[in-house]
């Protein structure tokens, strides 16, 4: 992966919004990688959780939004409770999802779910899934 880091990416609107929506200080993270090691979804991710933070604070928006990682996060909070720096990565994942969803770009629409699945799924899965993946 090659990407250009500049004062433009570092001071970008993207970095400002991720900080604002997540309420997290992105510089708190010291990249120990414990979150990636603890993440039960990591085998389905193309970008480990630790790298999401690094790319986010460098303002590399394109690299993050073209990855499926934030859409693979299950908000299980294994990262959050184990981070030695008290950093809440689950909130950064949510902020990045919202930056897409708030542009009216849905990751999942109700019509993407088959009628059979709609009948079978517990209500809380439908409510939770659509809350996380649609605007």
């Amino acid at each position: 992966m090659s990407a250009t880091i500049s004062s433009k990416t570092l001071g970008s609107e993207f970095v400002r919004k991720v900080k604002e929506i997540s309420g997290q200080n992105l510089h708190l993270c010291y990249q120990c990688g414990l979150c990636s090691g603890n993440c039960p979804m990591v085998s389905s991710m193309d970008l480990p959780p630790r790298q999401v933070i690094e790319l986010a604070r460098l303002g590399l928006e394109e690299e993050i939004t073209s990855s499926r990682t934030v859409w693979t996060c299950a908000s299980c909070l294994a990262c959050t409770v184990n981070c030695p720096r008290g950093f809440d990565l689950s909130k950064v994942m949510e902020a990045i999802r919202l930056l897409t969803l708030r542009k009216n770009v849905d990751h999942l629409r109700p019509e993407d779910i088959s009628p059979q699945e709609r009948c079978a799924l517990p209500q809380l899965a439908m409510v939770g899934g659509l809350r996380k993946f649609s605007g």
Partner: protein
Amino acid sequence: MSLAYYPGCTLKTKAKNLEEPAIASMEVLGSRLEEIPRWNCCGAVYSLADDDLIHQVAPVRNLIRVKEQGKNEVVTLCSFCLNTLKRANLLMKEDAEKRGTLNSFMDEEIDYGGEVEVVHLLEVLKDQVGWEALAQKVKLPLRGLRVAPYYGCTLLRPREVAIDDVEKPTILQELLEAVGATPVDFPEFAECCGSYQIVSSPDDIPKYAWHILNSALTHGAEALVLTCPLCDYNLGQGQKELMKKHDGFDGVPLFYFTQLLALALGLGPQVCHFELNYGEPELLLREKNLLPRVEAL
């Protein structure tokens, strides 16, 4: 004793086998779970965005319904409801600015400041009924039943809403012991089953489910006990496929904690609704001579 009870949407539809044995068991234990009036879906997942207050309205409204009843505690059964209500409650208690905004936005409601305590039925059993008092009411000890407690995520995370020790919870083990079953510990007791990923990436779920189920079996369990209808679905619905894929895997029964409680209190299949469970629990209960015995009571 009457307890204010928030059922949530899933218990009224897919998870009757979680709710009905809970209500019946509490009656045997001398408490009534009384549904709060005009409750609404809490939204299932707690909003993790700092600037998103609108999604706090649904859970907070439910807490206001409890306060209106003159109650200072609300009991939940679904792990997600517990988590969402408890986190929203904490926000109302601790964040004065957001509390102010939400209260003025919900102008038609009485003001709310986090006065209600959100608890899980497991906590009621432990702290209000007591394990010893519960054990004395047991008519059918679940002897010889080896069960792995699976906590999932939302009972234990984040730390500030956990119902037990985050690293080493024991509350489900204590319940199992009180009803005469044998708890089987396994390392994945709190590992996420994939949660709402079932809606968008259903093909990934069997991988997570297998990791959890196989570990419980390897550690000697014959069944798992859980508290969450989404855990139940994710660990249950793919078992037939997993049987084809993994030689020697014959499926594993999943129980809600309320079903094992009810069974031990002498309440039978009409209350427990084992027919709604995954992994053929009735076969296991027959094998252990528990079903014939509860039917003979």
